[in-house]
Structure formats: structure tokens, C-alpha cells
């Protein structure tokens, strides 16, 4: 469990992560207008914060690869699977704790109710896994931090655009919606929509399932062993 423990410690040492983790959510959770039912953008903004947090957490795996530390780690009796699994688990735990804190504060302020809170936590956590897996796959494609960041900022803008952050997904025309469906953000939006409408039907579970499938695909791609 050494890798798990230190992945935890390392993440908490980085300032950018801490800001993304704790300052931003607290900053938005107290802005009342974001959480009214007719203007529920706050839920989605929080999703974007999770996405950024996941990206900056997974960055440490890429840094290990670029600095050559991964050579050292694989020279130790550690399997690739163990290394990735324990790292991602630690990251997920950090985000998980944050979502719980966030939802608890939100419930206290805006009276979300137990069932909605549980569903929110589930949605956000599965989205966190998808974001972590996406970041892993993303970072495995690049060898330069600058390049990775620059293109990521484009992709995330498109995700925000088509995933319901700027425009509610119900307003999207069909062909844009079908592009949007290729991003996990769309499905987070979708699930949140049905939570806000207090409609506990199949659509909610479907969104969860699709996010899960996205995670599986990204993980399969991103978990290939790379030394350089």
C-alpha cells in the first residue's frame, strides 16, 4: 500500500490540486444563485471542477514517466497494474471525500434531501472515475506537458460546450447532441438533470452505466505500460 499512501501525500502537497480540490468547490457552493432549481448550473460547474482536479491529479503519473522515475519504480518488485491501480485509487479517494463534503454542505444550505444527496454523490464519483481514466489515457498520448495542456484546454472547452455546461443539453440540436454524447460530461449533465427533476427513472441509471463504460474504455487504453 506504499504507492497508495504516497500518491495521497504527494497529491495533497501540490498547491494547484489543493485549490482545485477545496477552494473552488467551497467558493461556488456558497453562491446561492447557482443552486436554484431553474438555474442549476452549479451542479455542472462542480462537475467541471472534478474534471480539472482529476486532470491535475493524474498529472503526477505523467511526471513520473517524463522524469524517468517510472524506470525506478518498475525496477522495484512492482507490477504495472499495482502502480496504476493504487495511484488511481488514491486520487479517487481524494475526490470522493471532497464530493461528500461538498454535497453535505450543499444539502445543509439548500435542503437537497437524503436521496438526492446519495444520488449526487454516486453521480459525481462515477464521473470522477471517468475523468481520472480519461486523464490517464490523455496523458499517455503526450510526452510534453505544454502540448498536453494546450490541447486539453481545447478539448475541455468543447466538452463544456457540448456537455451542457454552457447550454442545457436539452437545447442542443440533435447532431450536436450526438457529438456531445461522446463525452462523459454529457452523461453527467444528463444524470444531474434527472436528479434535479426528482425523476428517479432508467435515464439516471443509464447515465451512470455509460459513464462506467467510458471509464472502462479509457482505462484499457491508458493502462498500457510505458517507460518513456
Amino acid at each position, binding site marked *: 500500500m506504499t504507492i497508495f499512501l504516497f500518491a495521497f501525500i504527494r497529491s495533497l502537497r501540490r498547491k494547484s490540486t489543493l485549490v482545485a480540490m477545496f477552494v473552488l468547490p467551497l467558493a461556488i457552493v456558497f453562491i446561492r444563485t447557482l443552486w436554484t432549481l431553474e438555474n442549476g448550473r452549479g451542479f455542472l460547474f462542480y462537475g467541471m471542477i472534478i474534471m480539472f482536479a482529476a486532470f491535475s491529479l493524474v498529472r503526477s503519473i505523467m511526471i513520473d514517466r517524463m522524469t524517468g522515475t517510472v524506470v525506478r519504480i518498475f525496477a522495484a518488485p512492482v507490477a504495472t497494474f499495482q502502480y496504476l491501480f493504487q495511484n488511481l485509487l488514491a486520487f479517487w479517494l481524494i475526490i470522493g471525500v471532497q464530493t461528500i463534503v461538498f454535497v453535505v454542505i450543499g444539502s445543509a444550505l439548500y435542503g437537497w434531501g437524503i436521496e438526492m444527496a446519495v444520488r449526487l454523490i454516486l453521480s459525481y464519483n462515477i464521473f470522477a472515475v471517468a475523468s481520472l481514466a480519461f486523464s490517464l489515457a490523455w496523458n499517455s498520448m503526450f510526452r510534453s506537458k505544454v502540448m498536453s495542456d494546450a490541447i486539453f484546454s481545447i478539448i475541455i472547452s468543447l466538452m463544456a460546450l457540448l456537455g451542457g455546461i454552457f447550454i442545457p443539453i436539452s437545447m442542443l440540436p*440533435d*447532431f450536436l447532441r*450526438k*457529438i456531445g*454524447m*461522446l463525452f462523459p460530461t454529457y452523461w453527467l449533465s444528463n444524470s444531474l438533470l434527472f436528479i434535479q427533476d426528482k425523476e428517479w427513472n432508467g435515464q439516471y441509471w*443509464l447515465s451512470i*452505466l*455509460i459513464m462506467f*463504460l*467510458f471509464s*472502462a*474504455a479509457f482505462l*484499457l*487504453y491508458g*493502462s*498500457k505500460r510505458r*517507460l*518513456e
Partner: protein
Amino acid sequence: MGKSMSLHEKIFIVYRMMGMLLLYILWTKTGSDVAGLFLLLSLLILMLFRWRFPKLKWTLIIDQLVVISISFLWGNSQYILALGVFEAAYLGCPLFALPSVFYTVLYNPEGFLFLLLTQSAFAGIALWGWSKQQESAFRNMDEERRRYYETESLKQELLAANVQMVRMVELSERSRIAREIHDDAGHEIVAAYMSLQTVQALFETDAVEAEEMFCEAIERLGSGICKIREAVHNLTPLTEIGVAALHRLSDRFSHCPINFTVYGDTSKVSAYLWVILEACLKEALTNVMRHADAKIVRATLDITPCIVRLCVENDGVRKNSYFTAGLGLRNLQQRAAAVGGNISTSIAESFRLVCVLPIL
């Protein structure tokens, strides 16, 4: 760091990507919302799964079962069965395409789907044939390479045996010379020596006989010297070997001025080393001619108690930037390795060859 992909693998991947893209377009144009996405995602996951674990080919059946079940929700999805058939054919396990075949026969026996599946099957088979052909070509290449390595090691052994042989020949020749000198010249000289001893004793008593014997002794000595001369003459090889051969090579080199210097005692170097050194010099000079605009070539032969070292270098600039160890050089390197030596070349600024061989 992985193995580079061969062309048919690339075509395989592109074909599948095209299939997925077409399915996606079909979905955006026609399809039911989520069933299509679910299908796309599952196919992608299974594809990635087989990329990570290439041995689990049977997962192809899952692919097709997913497609078939979705096709009841979204009819158009059945066309993507073509991809499964294609992959099964390419991977060389046509049995895994059976679900598609059954589905087509049961639900859509003479429609467009049938045509599509047949086409994909043919495409897959063609690609499979290609991959098999290439595989066998690779196997042949491997076999060739293995044989090449075997030949190479055999050559190493032969070269080692050769060295052994040269030493044996040297020894037997040495003993033959010893015998010849001992038997012929030695005999005469010993006889002369004995005669002279007798002469010494006879000087006081019998001067006449002493003179007679003295003459005889001189004659015998003369004959002995003659025999030695003969033996030495017979021993001198007709072609030059040793340092003389190297000198001759450098003298004949007309491409540019050459400066050949020798340090140390050349007599310590055995004949079989001279052969290698000569070949080295020849090879180096050829390379200088071919690869460099040399103004002057320096060749140095150093002989120390333990090693003999030949260094050939030119001061000129190289002509063409790339240089690979040619067959001649590789051969030489093996011959040097067989006697425990080493040849190294560099072309950093000028051409340089260094050959170091141990003296036993």
C-alpha cells in the same frame, strides 16, 4: 519501444476505425439515442480489450452477440456485424463468425446485409492471407537469420581451428627444420668436428695424415654449410609475408601519400597474425579511398610484448556521411575475435581503423 506495426496490421486497424466511424455516422443520421451509443462504446471497449490481450480472440463472439441484441432495438446496427466477420476472418478463426452467419440466415437471408458480410469476409480473408504470407516470410527470415548465426559461429570455430592449425604447422615445420639440420648439416659438422679433434691429436705425431684429415674436415664443413644454406633456402617462402608484405601494400597505394611506420620487434609476431594485419591494412586503405578525400594516410604498427596494434587513419574530410561496416570489415572483425583481438572503426572526423591482436 514496442515492435513496429506491419502494413496489414495498420490496414486492419484503419478498417475497423472506418467501420466504427460509419456506424457513428449512421447513428447520428438515423438511430435511436442511447442504444447506438451503448453499442459503439461496447464495441470500442472490446476492441481495446483485444488490443491489450491479443490472445482472447473468443471475445469476438461477445461483440456479435451485443450487436445482435442491440439490432432488435436499432435495426441499422446489424450492419456492424460486418466488422466482426472481418475480424474473425483476419484473425483466422472463422468459427467465431458463426453468430453473424446464423443471424443473417435467420433474419435477413438475401438482403444488403448478406452482401456486406460476404464482402467483409473476403476482405478479412485477403488480409489474413497476406498476414500469413508475411508471417511465413518472417519465419523464413528468422530461419535465414538463425542459419546465418549458425554459419557465423561455425566460421568462428573454423577460424579458431585455423589458428590452431597454423600453430601446429609452425611446430611441425620447426621440428622438420630441426631434423633436417640435425640429420644432414649436423651430421657433417659433427664429423668435421671429430676430424678436427683427431687432427689436433695428430699434429705432433703424424703431420701428413693430419693434413689429410684436416682437408677432409674442411670439405665436410663446406658441405655442412652448403646443407644449411640449402635448408635455409628451402625455408624462405616464395611470397613475402610479415612486415615486408605490409610495406609492399603501402608502397603500392597511389591514391594519396601514405606514411607507414613500424615500432617494436616484428619477429615476435606469428604468421597467422600477419595474415590478419595484412588484410586489415588492405581493407582500411580501400575504405579510405572510398569514403574520404584524404590528403595523407598514417599507418602505424606497434608491437609490444603483449599486443600488436595496427592503426590506420587519414586526415581528410569524409565524403559521405553514412558508413556501415561492410562485409569485408565484419569478416575481419570475426577473424580478429577468433584470435582474441578486436577491430574498431570510427568515422567521427576522419576514417580510422584500429586493430589490436594479442601476442601469446
